[in-house]
């Protein structure tokens, strides 16, 4: 262990101890206060249950607050002198030679032009640094739909031509997509991992600046004990109202929390799955993920693999660092609440799986805590729901039940139920303070810094954006709470999760989609309001902050998915971010890319047909298709498919049948010849097709 490594560990222990102590002390105090607030002061089982649930929820809020405070401390001190980012002299770092690095872009049913535009922008940005020789790019496709992967292949070829990237930009599609993204990356590592020292893992919507990539490789080269550097991607390019709220919140409040996280986690940070660089040798050695054995829910393949991989690297003695101040790393956010909640459904199950892994022997304490935080980020929702239910029952008992003056058996002294609404209000306000104080502080830090303030569009844009975001977050919280509760329930009951490509366009949520997603919440809100009215008193007023958003859920969801509203807000300088006001070069090149302006020449639904008919496309797809000798039965089936395809056209085949033909070299070449030699042109469009100039 190097001197610096030992040094940061000592600091880390102090900071984590302090952080945990503050959270625990605050939680114990608040829970005790909440217990005192309850009518029997915790003298009944229902009250004990309420207090315990409250304790968990308060600890969660408190942890967020203190992370923000650590971030504030970091900001006030001008950074962390013990953090990895401060270890190297900038001139020495810049002079460090690079090592072979693979940039991986795992994709699954993504928007092909957007992916291609992103890769082109990153590639050109790396080329501009003069260090391209040390980088190779791999598009790793798991797409199953030939309509999509044929486009991917075409885009790959076009990228090769445009960038002169032959031999430096590769494309591979897995025949069998075992274990989703982690399996895709593992497949790369088995085949080509030994040729590289590092891999940069991206998402389909990731963008990284060339300078940032080079700097990360240099940092890794200088510190052999570091196995993973995680950047903090900034959310960009949001078009809808929802996406703009998300990117504003990420950009406005994110830095403070990230600084706090980096200051406490230090070299035991976590992996977020993308926009990170990893040292390949330890990753290969320690991060092959077995399935989680056993029966019941949360078993099988690891869904949220990134946290687990970081924990396994940490267990083996390697360091993982978050780099909160490293700019030049970007990602996009789902365009609508419905899309975000669908993604959360997968993440909820993945994070809950960590319950089965967090007690593995040898893991670092911080990684166990990270597992716990991941679990709590979803479990907090059903706990909140449970808290509301318990509170409703409690109040109903007071209003309509028989008062029990002797809750303690064998005690001759009566207990008078007491209710202190003013104290309850104080507790509520204290909790709200913990929730909103880091946000307010973040905003103040932006407002007092002229450069940052201008980046967000100026004083009134910042104030207006914060007010709008805060109002919307109040509406969004109950909707997320209900959906996450359903997701957690689904994960625990073993409901199947669909692995679908994330929607990254600005498509609007339809009313039917919105009702499907939020309808149950609306019904629950109506029921709860009804029960509250029956209970009587002022109780219904207390329910409104939760019940009203749930009641309006479908309408809110549809409104938030509106790209026109997003554009209107942008036009009125609301929810602006510095990356919008002055886009970085890599982002600008994506936004101005002709890929997004319709450079994809294949009309929708025509990729398979053009792969057969067009000589150039056919040669490309045939070259990338599998050449294999089929068993007689399969060969006969393929021959029958070819004939049916020829006689009745491509639309006569199912998606699976088209995929079988499009993945077979012989079928592609044969069909090409047969179509052109065919007497009739029924069912086939023999072009000419538009082709790109490059």
């Amino acid at each position, binding site marked *: 262990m190097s001197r610096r490594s030992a040094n940061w560990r000592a600091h880390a222990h102090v900071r984590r101890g302090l952080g945990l102590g503050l959270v625990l002390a605050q939680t114990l105090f608040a829970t005790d206060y909440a217990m005192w607030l309850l009518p029997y002061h915790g003298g009944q089982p229902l009250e004990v249950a309420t207090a315990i649930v409250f304790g968990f929820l308060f600890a969660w809020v408190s942890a967020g607050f203190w992370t923000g405070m650590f971030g504030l401390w970091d900001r006030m001190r001008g950074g962390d002198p013990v953090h990895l980012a401060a270890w190297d002299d900038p001139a020495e770092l810049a002079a460090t030679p690079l090592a072979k690095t693979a940039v991986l872009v795992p994709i699954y049913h993504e928007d092909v032009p957007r992916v291609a535009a992103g890769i082109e922008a990153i590639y050109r940005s790396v080329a501009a640094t003069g260090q391209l020789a040390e980088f190779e790019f791999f598009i790793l496709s798991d797409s199953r739909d030939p309509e999509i992967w044929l486009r991917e292949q075409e885009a790959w070829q076009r990228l090769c031509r445009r960038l002169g990237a032959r031999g430096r930009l590769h494309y591979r599609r897995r025949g069998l997509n075992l274990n989703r993204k982690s399996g895709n990356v593992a497949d790369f590592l088995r085949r080509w991992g030994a040729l590289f020292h590092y891999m940069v893992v991206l998402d389909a919507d990731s963008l990284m600046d060339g300078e940032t990539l080079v700097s990360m490789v240099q940092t890794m080269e200088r510190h052999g004990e570091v196995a993973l550097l995680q950047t903090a991607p900034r959310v960009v390019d949001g078009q809808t109202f929802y996406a703009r709220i998300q990117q504003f919140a990420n950009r406005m409040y994110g830095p403070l929390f990230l600084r706090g996280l980096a200051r406490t986690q230090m070299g035991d940070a976590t992996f977020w799955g993308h926009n990170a660089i990893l040292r390949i040798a330890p990753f290969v050695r320690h991060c092959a993920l077995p399935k989680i054995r056993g029966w019941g829910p949360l078993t099988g393949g690891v869904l949220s693999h990134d946290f687990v991989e970081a924990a396994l690297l940490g267990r083996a003695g390697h360091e993982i660092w978050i780099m909160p101040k490293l700019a030049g790393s970007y990602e996009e956010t789902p365009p609508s609440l419905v899309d975000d909640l669908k993604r959360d459904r997968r993440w909820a199950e993945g994070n809950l799986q960590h319950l089965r892994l967090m007690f593995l022997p040898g893991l670092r304490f911080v990684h166990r805590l990270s597992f716990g935080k991941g679990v709590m980020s979803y479990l907090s929702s059903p706990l909140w729901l449970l808290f509301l239910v318990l509170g409703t029952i409690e109040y109903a008992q007071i209003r309509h039940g028989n008062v029990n003056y002797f809750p303690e058996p064998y005690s001759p002294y009566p207990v008078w139920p007491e209710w202190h609404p003013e104290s309850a209000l104080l507790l509520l306000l204290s909790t709200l303070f913990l929730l909103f104080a880091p946000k307010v502080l973040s905003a103040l830090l932006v407002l007092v810094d002229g450069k940052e303030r201008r980046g967000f569009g100026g004083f009134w844009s910042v104030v207006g954006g914060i007010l709008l975001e805060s109002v919307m977050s109040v509406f969004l919280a109950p909707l997320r709470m209900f959906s996450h509760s359903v997701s957690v329930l689904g994960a625990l009951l073993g409901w199947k999760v669909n692995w679908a490509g994330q929607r990254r366009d600005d498509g609007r949520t339809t009313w039917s989609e919105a009702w499907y997603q939020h309808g149950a919440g609306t019904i629950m809100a109506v029921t709860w309001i009804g029960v509250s009215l029956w209970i009587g008193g002022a109780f219904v007023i207390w329910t409104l902050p939760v019940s009203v958003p749930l009641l309006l859920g479908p309408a809110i969801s549809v409104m938030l998915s509106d790209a026109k509203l997003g554009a209107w807000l942008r036009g009125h300088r609301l929810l602006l971010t510095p990356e919008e006001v002055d886009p970085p070069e890599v982002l600008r090149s994506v936004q101005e890319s002709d890929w997004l302006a319709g450079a994809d020449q294949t009309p929708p639904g025509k990729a398979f047909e053009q792969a057969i008919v067009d000589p*150039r496309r056919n040669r490309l797809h*045939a070259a990338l298709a599998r050449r294999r000798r089929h068993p007689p039965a399969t060969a006969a089936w393929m021959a029958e498919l070819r004939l049916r395809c020829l006689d009745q056209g491509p639309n006569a085949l199912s998606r699976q049948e088209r995929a079988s033909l499009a993945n077979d070299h012989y079928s592609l070449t044969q069909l090409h010849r047969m179509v052109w030699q*065919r007497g009739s042109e029924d069912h086939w469009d023999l072009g000419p097709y538009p082709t790109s100039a490059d």
Partner: protein
Amino acid sequence: MAADTAAPARVAPDACPDDLPRACNRIWRYLEMVGVEACERGRITLKLLDQAMASTLRDGGHLTPAAMDAMTDWLGKREQMTNADQACGGAAALAESAHPPTCRQSMAPERRYGRGRWHRRLRADQPPASHSP
């Protein structure tokens, strides 16, 4: 080529005449799709038809395998001469460009699992997994 000299009287059309067999039309369109210029397209259409005329006419005017082969051969030679598609080369080069030669190494197969793997603790100071080229 012999066929080049066999039909000196014909004038290369700038569009496929209607009275020629259907194969002419197909070759014309195929070459158009490949990006052969119109003037060259007419000349080569006639040449290819001359080469494969017998089989084409025998087959009722359709584009026969022989004509298709002749056309593919011609396109291949043309590409070699003009180096037209050098960005990604031929089929083999294309495939290799997409999938460079591998250097396989082991990473625990995902189907092999069990409690032992989750509970096995490897230290950082152990040598990395070996790989065989």
